[in-house]
């Protein structure tokens, strides 16, 4: 992590710095850009030799997009991925010629869908031998032996050389993908949900294989997954993402012992744990992930957080979102005159409806934190003026124990929270 001790230069492989990936939303005949989906919105972390970094989060949090940026399959909108080449850190999207090839060889990827990631018209020898051919690593004379060697390392063998991908089981296909990724002897492999399409028993085999290969070859993994039990087994460090940003990062065991971000806590509570007390109720996260084209201000998790405080970055959209769910209210809203994200006049179709809202917003019906965060609430005929304080971004900050979390609450406050 950034706050951790300055990493040994020769130990560092990849350094992800403030990476953003925004996708334009186009509309109309002229394809005008009307907004951006902020899939990844400023993420930084490092990957060092021989370690496994787990990148976790719900679907849609941007973890797969980030994985693709790191594997150079997509260019970042802002920021960059820096690769340690002989002690020099250089941005991978600016590498050229030999350096670009060197990075390409050293950063490989295994995809989630093993069937889709293997060309259905190629035989195993073509699939696994291809990287060797691209870099002239093998002559036609020793190609077969090299491929057999790789297959044997992943638990397959010579008898599989001349088969098509569809003739294998899902687990075997993923082994073929891993063999292909290993062919060039890379430093780091991006594993994009490599086991989530597999049966549990097969999952364990693949995870053990990956662990063995890591020890043998001192590989670094970026393990992208939504499955916490898998990262707990695999990852040395975790990066927990929520809506394109890092919610929390640190040593895996430490995070599992005491999560410092309420989101991490909720994520872990949502996962049934075989070792945990059977009396503890398993419960999922409430509410939906907000639209990444218009992420919440302040802390992105405040819309779903049970621990939210007035300082979490409440905004006009929170009131609008609350109105959407309030029965008999939203249909009376005719317009939002927005001065900023934090101040607006809500226009209603009658004075009565406006009065009803200003009453409701003052009552127990809205979250207490939102009520407390409201700086101004004026009823003006059929309009309601509201204003919140702009608390700015709530970024990753170091905690006393050296870990990083993006939360206004202290670790003790998060830890002491008992679900009601």
């Amino acid at each position, binding site marked *: 992590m950034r706050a951790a001790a300055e990493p040994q230069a020769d130990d560092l492989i990849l350094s992800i710095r403030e990476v953003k990936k925004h996708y334009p939303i186009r509309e109309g005949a002229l394809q005008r850009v009307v907004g951006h989906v902020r899939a990844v919105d400023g993420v930084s972390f490092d990957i060092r030799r021989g370690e496994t970094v787990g990148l976790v989060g719900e679907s849609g949090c941007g973890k797969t997009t980030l994985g*693709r940026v790191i*594997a*150079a*399959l997509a260019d970042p909108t802002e920021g960059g991925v820096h690769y340690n080449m002989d002690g020099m850190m250089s941005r991978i999207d600016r590498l050229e010629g030999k350096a670009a*090839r060197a990075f*390409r*060889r050293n*950063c*490989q*990827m295994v*995809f989630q*869908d093993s069937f*889709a*990631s*293997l*060309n*259905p*018209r*190629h*035989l195993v*020898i*073509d699939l696994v031998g*291809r*990287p060797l051919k*691209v*870099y002239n690593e093998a002559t*036609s*004379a*020793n190609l*077969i*032996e090299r491929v057999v060697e790789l297959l044997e390392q992943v638990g397959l063998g*010579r*008898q599989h*050389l*001349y*088969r*098509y991908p*569809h003739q294998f089981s899902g687990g075997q296909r993923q082994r073929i*993908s891993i063999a*292909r990724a290993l062919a*060039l002897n890379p430093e780091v492999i991006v594993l994009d949900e490599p086991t989530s399409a597999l049966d549990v028993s097969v999952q364990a085999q693949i995870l053990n294989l990956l662990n063995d290969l890591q020890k043998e070859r001192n590989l670094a993994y970026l393990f992208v997954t939504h499955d916490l039990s898998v990262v707990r087994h695999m990852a040395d460090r975790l990066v927990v993402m929520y809506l394109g940003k890092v919610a929390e990062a640190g040593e895996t065991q430490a995070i599992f012992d005491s999560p410092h971000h309420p989101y991490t806590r909720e994520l872990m509570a949502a996962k049934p744990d075989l070792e945990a007390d059977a009396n503890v109720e398993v419960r999922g996260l409430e509410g939906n992930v907000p639209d990444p084209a218009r992420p919440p201000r302040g802390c992105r998790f405040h819309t779903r957080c049970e621990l939210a405080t007035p300082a979490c970055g409440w905004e006009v959209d929170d009131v609008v979102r609350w109105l959407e769910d309030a029965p008999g209210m939203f249909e009376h809203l005719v317009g939002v005159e927005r001065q900023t994200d934090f101040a607006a006049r809500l226009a209603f179709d009658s004075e009565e409806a406006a009065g009803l809202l200003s009453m409701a917003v003052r009552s127990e019906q809205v979250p207490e934190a939102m009520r407390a965060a409201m700086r101004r609430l004026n009823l003006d005929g059929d309009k309601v003026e509201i204003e919140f304080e702009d608390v700015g971004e709530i970024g990753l900050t170091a905690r006393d124990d050296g870990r990083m979390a993006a939360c206004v609450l202290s670790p003790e406050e998060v830890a002491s929270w008992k679900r009601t």
Partner: protein
Amino acid sequence: MTDTSQSRIDAEGMTADTAFRVRMRRLFGVLQGLASNPATVIGLVIIGLMLAMAIFAPWISEPNSPDPYQMPRDWGAVRKPPGTPGHLLGTTNEGGDVLYGVIWGSRTSLQLSLMVVGSTMIFGTIIGSIAGLVGGWVDEVLMRIVDVFLSIPELIFALAIAAMLGPSFGNIIFALAVVLWVKYARIMRAQVLQIKQHDFVDAARVIGDSKLNIYLRDILPNAVTPVTVQATLDMGNVVLIGATLSFIGLAEAGIAEWGVLVSEGQAGIASGRWWASTFPGLMIFLWALSFNLVGDGLRDALDPRTEGR
């Protein structure tokens, strides 16, 4: 292959050409799929017979003029019915031997369909691939051009071009080639757009393979199935449209071509001389039918949902 690896593979019952054998087995599977459909088999048999007729035309029906594609004229035997000695299928108004026209017409038709389908398939595939791969304004411009071509009915468009260039069979070939490439461009673009989204294309990019290699090894082989089917169907359709154009007089008069023969014979139908139009007409029908049968069979046999499973 070194000697050691060769012998080791042999010891395990595998030879150097195992990959070749496995691929052949896959091709054989497609052929088996074709053979399991009776309609396709009928189509294949008819195509085989007509191809044989085209290839062996100089031996089956020996030409007696310097240009074998011109109908020989026997002015001593005009308007003879089928069964006349020396003129098994009868003769036309101008003493042309109908059997000769039918046999040499298969050669003309084969030339027409191979040249038109070959050139349109290659050109359309290239244009469609560029549009799909490059995208952006290049795609936009190419596809608007394709739209313009598609907005004019094939037959009318080809007729206009051929009429403008003057009556000749070569011009008919050219006109059809100009009109028909757009279908392949459309199909290919759609295929490329779909296939380049596949993970295996990304996997090849992660390896670091070149764009050309990714196109040739990953995208093209997975994209050609619908193009192949369309080409087979077009082998039949092209002859149908070509015959229509020569029927209305856009080929040279007197050429051994089925459309021209139908045209020459049609005046006599009312007077009971049915043969001069019927036999070449039947050939056009069989040609178009057989390629359509095989095209449909090919579509089923190459269906990605059933292929290779």
